[in-house]
């Protein structure tokens, strides 16, 4: 081990010299604020080079988890490793912050500097920053670069925040609800930026309460609610989406009595639902039944549970975690 290390040039990058197996490793993390248990035994890992999303409603404990990883908050229990270091240990602070970038939930930028000056100032804090012009172009603020920050719109300030998160050329980027308050165009723009960063090798850990954001962006998702992770997987497999039964639905045909429906068909509010593990066969039988009767299956759909269905089921139909917390105490 020692021989191996001393064989390298002395000033070789810290990053390369001891790159840990995973970018982020969290095990049994707990944090309470007085009576409120914000994080109750959270465990997950983030692999190098992936986009990992913590998806959950307001009050789920996303920001608390992220801020512990960023070194802003002390944890009550559990193990945390960020790029191989413990963010709770002050001795690691500077070296760690040289390698991570962050976009906090609340926008905070000094009002009187221009966009360009703000980015150039932060660039000077890092040992190997990205090019200021390149970053300005990436977040699409070239037209505003000589404006004072206080004259920017909310969305532009958020993009400036994103620029500050990436100016240090981080190997790991934390994004806390990066697109909250964006219009749809701006969101797609932000997603594009995040994807490009990932493709260039940056590991990204983001939080969101938007299902489409997790679906669009994340390589892996963990659903968090009430301070606990209730499901984890890729956006297409999470919550058993891939193995869940297919759902076939159609409108109850006019003049068709419930008793006449094929076996397994359950009438609901205006739509008849058939759940099946064998969609090809079931669909065949169903259309066969309809053709023979001469009825038209209007509003026919075949689908799997959407991420939204899974999310709503997992997070108790979207009930805010905080009210759940209180009612169970």
């Amino acid at each position, binding site marked *: 081990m020692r021989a191996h290390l001393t064989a390298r040039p002395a000033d070789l990058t810290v990053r390369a010299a001891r790159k840990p197996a995973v970018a982020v490793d969290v095990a049994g993390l707990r944090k309470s604020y007085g009576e409120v248990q914000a994080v109750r035994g959270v465990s997950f890992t983030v692999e190098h080079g992936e986009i990992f999303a913590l998806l959950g409603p307001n009050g789920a404990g996303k920001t608390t988890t992220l801020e512990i990883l960023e070194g802003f*908050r002390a944890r009550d229990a559990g193990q945390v490793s960020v790029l191989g270091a413990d963010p709770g240990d002050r001795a690691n602070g500077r070296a760690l912050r040289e390698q991570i970038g962050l976009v906090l939930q609340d926008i905070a930028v000094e009002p009187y500097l221009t966009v360009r000056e703000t980015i150039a100032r932060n660039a000077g804090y890092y040992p190997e920053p990205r090019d200021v012009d390149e970053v300005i172009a990436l977040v699409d603020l070239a037209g505003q670069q000589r404006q004072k920050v206080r004259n920017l719109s909310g969305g532009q300030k958020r993009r400036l925040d994103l620029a500050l998160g990436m100016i*240090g050329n981080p190997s790991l980027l934390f994004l806390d609800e990066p697109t909250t308050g964006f219009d749809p165009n701006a969101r797609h723009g932000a997603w594009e930026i995040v994807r490009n960063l990932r493709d260039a090798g940056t590991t990204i850990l983001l939080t969101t309460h938007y299902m489409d954001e997790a679906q669009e962006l994340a390589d892996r998702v963990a659903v968090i609610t009430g301070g606990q992770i209730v499901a984890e997987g890729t956006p297409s497999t999470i919550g058993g989406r891939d193995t869940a039964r297919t759902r076939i639905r159609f409108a109850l045909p006019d003049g068709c009595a419930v008793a006449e429906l094929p076996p397994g068909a359950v009438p609901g509010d205006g739509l008849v639902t058939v759940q099946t593990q064998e969609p090809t066969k079931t669909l065949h039988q169903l259309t066969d039944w309809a053709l023979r009767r001469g009825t038209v299956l209007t509003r026919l759909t075949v689908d799997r549970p959407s991420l939204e269905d899974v999310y709503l089921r997992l997070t108790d139909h979207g009930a805010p975690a905080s009210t759940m917390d209180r009612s169970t105490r």
Partner: protein
Amino acid sequence: MSIATHRVRRHDLALLWHQIRYEQLSFWRNPQSAFFTFVFPVVMITIFGALFGRVKAGSYFYGLSALQYYVPTIAAVSVLGACYSQLAIVLSMRRQNGILKRVRGTPLPAWAYFVGLLAHCVMVSVTDVALIVGVGAAFGVPLPTHWTAIAVALVLGAASFCALGVAVASLIRNSEAAPPVVQLILFPLVFISGTYLPIHSAMLNRISGALPVRPFNEALLGPFAQHTGFDWHNLGVLLAWGAAGAFVAVRRFRWNPRPE
């Protein structure tokens, strides 16, 4: 192996210089605040000059002319404003709106951030004092001769009151409370320390002599007007207060707007 992949830690002095430059830039970019920072002490000493410019030396001012007395005390109070008041208020505001937290998220070391602020406060203090001495000279106050003693008292005073400003910012929870709390501490202190009216009560002077403002006044009055040099006793008291402020600041300073 290309140079670009080597991580060379930016020299800390270069980093400090970078921070000082940008701290200055954000100050000067807010012209209103920059204007009032310098106009206030000039207006003060001009008013005192107009009111007391003709008052001859007498025992009420310890054998000095009124303006000989007021040039150093107004200089001292301008340093208090630039260091203690400004820093306590600015830091509370920056904490409240999350700017401090954002700074903490970068690799900029805390000491560099604070030295950047200290450098700014010293710059403002020195400028204020120079303006006050200039206006005083226009009213016929003779220029001081002990410049080294003045410089030492100024820098030590600025540093100590900066430390006290950071300490008060550490103890205040929200930024709305900052200006009233800062004034509430400062106003009685300035008043009993003889800044605006010489105090001839031995008891009061003994009390205020142990608090931070009067020692600073005295440390400036000597070399400014009485042709004495270093006032080691008062400089020592000032240093002790600065150390106490720094101790509280180091122990209690928070970057995060939301307490745990």
